[in-house]
């Protein structure tokens, strides 16, 4: 009896779904525009026909939502600014992929149905690696703000061959950061000589940096005395990893991880009474603005980062102000900055190549690839950035140290 009842409900729902499915299939992009991002609506006021459709996906729900939300907000700000200037008009649609390759592929389907012409690809790496072949196949230009793994731009990331050619990165590639950090520590023996590393081994970003750090360290004779790992399911207790580092006599701990676990590591090290130097990478940015974090714990932490929200130049100051207004006082992190830069890099390339909204994504893709491989771009996260034909960015990391709760550039 119950089964019949359940089945009848299910059948009824299927019929509704089927109706929705054919409706979507039949009318193409028109029906899905009702679900576009709030930012998109502002641009409808201007010439709706003349807007270039930018798509993108990232985790807006689930454990990694903080990164996706940052990118979405910053990209919306950039698009609003671009549209307010007149001239080239953008329309942004940002979909949720919950940091899951499966959902990223469906999100790509949604964006394609909508008529995406240029893309911000994905926020995180493994979803990026899952959709990159589709971008290559459908010839849609994509630049990821923060998908930093080589697997986002190469079909064979182990040997760095088979570049997709139309998928670009705005953030540092992981290897670049790892070697730069090792070199920096080697050159500045005062901050430490015996290195311990704590990294997240199920994260492309963290593991990628650690791999090149270790390789470079071996090359240049920097001593790595202890390595501790953690993953998603045990990202809370670091007493063991810190204890091992302490026992191994490490006087500097390298943390190629995001600021959330880093804040826990700093707190727990303090509770243990262990006080080595700490050295972070760009993922560490954001630690000072973490709500409730005792910034005195981060005193003296070094980090290599392309962006700091405390910088005083106009570009950064305006962006930080706009972001805080939009997001209820939250300070933007490097994900947000990379996303903002992506939109402006797309703008620069579109203007230089004379891209118009009536071009197909194919044509735009060819023009964009040509622009990106030849142009230089200056934004929040670096000056004079260039891109290789493989899609990797070249920009130089800046070393900063945290003093009195603020970033201070280290001059050398």
């Amino acid at each position, binding site marked *: 009896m119950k089964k019949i009842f359940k089945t009848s409900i299910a059948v009824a729902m299927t019929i509704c779904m089927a109706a929705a499915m054919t409706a979507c299939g039949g009318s193409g992009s028109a029906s899905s525009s009702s679900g576009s991002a709030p930012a998109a609506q502002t641009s409808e006021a201007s010439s709706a026909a003349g807007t270039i459709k930018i798509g993108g996906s990232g985790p807006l*729900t*689930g*454990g990694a*939502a*903080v990164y996706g*939300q*940052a990118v979405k907000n910053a990209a919306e700000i950039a698009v609003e600014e671009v549209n307010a200037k007149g001239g080239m008009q953008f329309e942004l649609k940002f979909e949720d992929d919950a940091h899951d390759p499966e959902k990223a592929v469906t999100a790509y389907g949604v964006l394609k149905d909508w008529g995406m012409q240029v893309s911000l690809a994905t926020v995180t790496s493994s979803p990026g690696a899952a959709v990159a072949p589709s971008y290559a196949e459908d010839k849609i230009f994509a630049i990821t703000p923060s998908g930093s793994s080589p697997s986002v731009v190469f079909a064979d990331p182990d040997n760095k061959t088979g570049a997709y050619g139309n998928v670009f990165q705005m953030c540092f590639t992981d290897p670049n950061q790892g070697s730069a950090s090792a070199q920096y520590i080697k050159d500045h023996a005062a901050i430490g000589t015996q290195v311990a590393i704590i990294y997240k*081994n199920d994260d492309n970003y963290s593991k990628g940096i650690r791999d090149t750090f270790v390789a470079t360290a071996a090359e240049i004779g920097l001593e790595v005395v202890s390595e*501790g*790992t*953690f*993953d998603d*399911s*045990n990202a*809370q*207790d670091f*007493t*063991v*990893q810190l*204890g*091992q580092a302490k*026992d191994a006599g490490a006087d500097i701990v390298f943390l190629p991880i995001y600021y*959330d*676990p880093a*804040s*826990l590591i700093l*707190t727990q090290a*303090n*509770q*243990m*009474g262990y006080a080595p130097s700490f050295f972070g990478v760009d993922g560490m940015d954001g630690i000072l603005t*973490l*709500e*409730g*974090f*005792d910034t005195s714990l981060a005193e003296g932490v070094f980090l290599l980062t392309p962006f700091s929200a405390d910088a005083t130049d106009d570009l950064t100051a305006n962006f930080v102000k706009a972001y805080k207004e939009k997001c*209820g006082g*939250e300070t933007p992190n490097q994900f947000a900055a990379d996303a903002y830069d992506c939109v402006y890099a797309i703008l620069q390339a579109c203007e230089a190549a004379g891209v118009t909204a009536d071009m197909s994504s194919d044509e735009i893709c060819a023009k964009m690839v040509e622009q990106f491989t030849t142009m230089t771009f200056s934004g929040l996260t670096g000056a004079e950035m260039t891109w290789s034909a493989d899609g990797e960015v070249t920009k130089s990391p800046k070393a900063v140290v945290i003093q009195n709760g603020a970033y201070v550039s280290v001059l050398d």
Partner: protein
Amino acid sequence: MQFLSYLINGLGLGSVYAIIALGYTMVYGIAKMLNFAHGDVIMIGAYIAFFALARFGFPFPVAVLLAMLVCTTLGVVIERLAYKPLRQATSLSVLITAIGVSYFLQNGAQILWSSSSKVFPSVISAGSIHLGSASVSYLTILTILTCIVVMICLTLFINKTKTGSAMRACSEDKGASMLMGINVNRIISITFAIGSGLAAIASVLLASTYPSVYPTMGSMPGIKAFTAAVFGGIGSIPGAFVGGLILGIIEIFAKAYISTQLSDAIVFAVLIIILLIKPTGLLGKKINVKV
């Protein structure tokens, strides 16, 4: 020797698991359901305590009481709205509903308080005492003490009070309890209230030890505590206590001496071995099914 400090850290972690496991095991013992939303009640408790401390500057005890109040109410409301209509339904339907509640709380928290994590203020002074060469933080000691106090109070409550007896009666036989004039629905509500109140205490301890508060923070401790409850024999209160402590110690030792990557696998492997030797957990009762 690092051994001693690992042991005490393990006891600290285990104490948190034990308090969470108590919530699971009580609800299971009386309502015969796996309340998968329990971990998310912990998350809510942590947020409440965080706002009370960091935003409104309430003193620590007030924050804890507030968190307990909110969690208790939440537990009772969830029970009324989502579980009570399913009293006659299959246990699987209730399980799915609990999962739905869990999704709801997680996503609700993300919308209300954003997905970026908040750092729980350190209220217990960050010092440590030295036992030989091992150092133990005050927080760990406080956690272990709290767990013991909670355990004693709960045992007294269950064994000495009238409500406690009624709870025991319900867990033995609901039908017979009803005939004896016990209001079973009220008892189930009280059980949820106590379990959720304990979740609030656990949330404050958890958030003080690992000071990161975010919408999905409850799921992993939830699963581990559920494991701990089964470990000790689900439905058994001393079982949850013992199970929690053992689980915490195994986890820390596995990380320290074998592999940080395999620590979860080792915890679960030990669980399987224990269940093969004692099929109803360490302190669980063997149920003889009659024809």
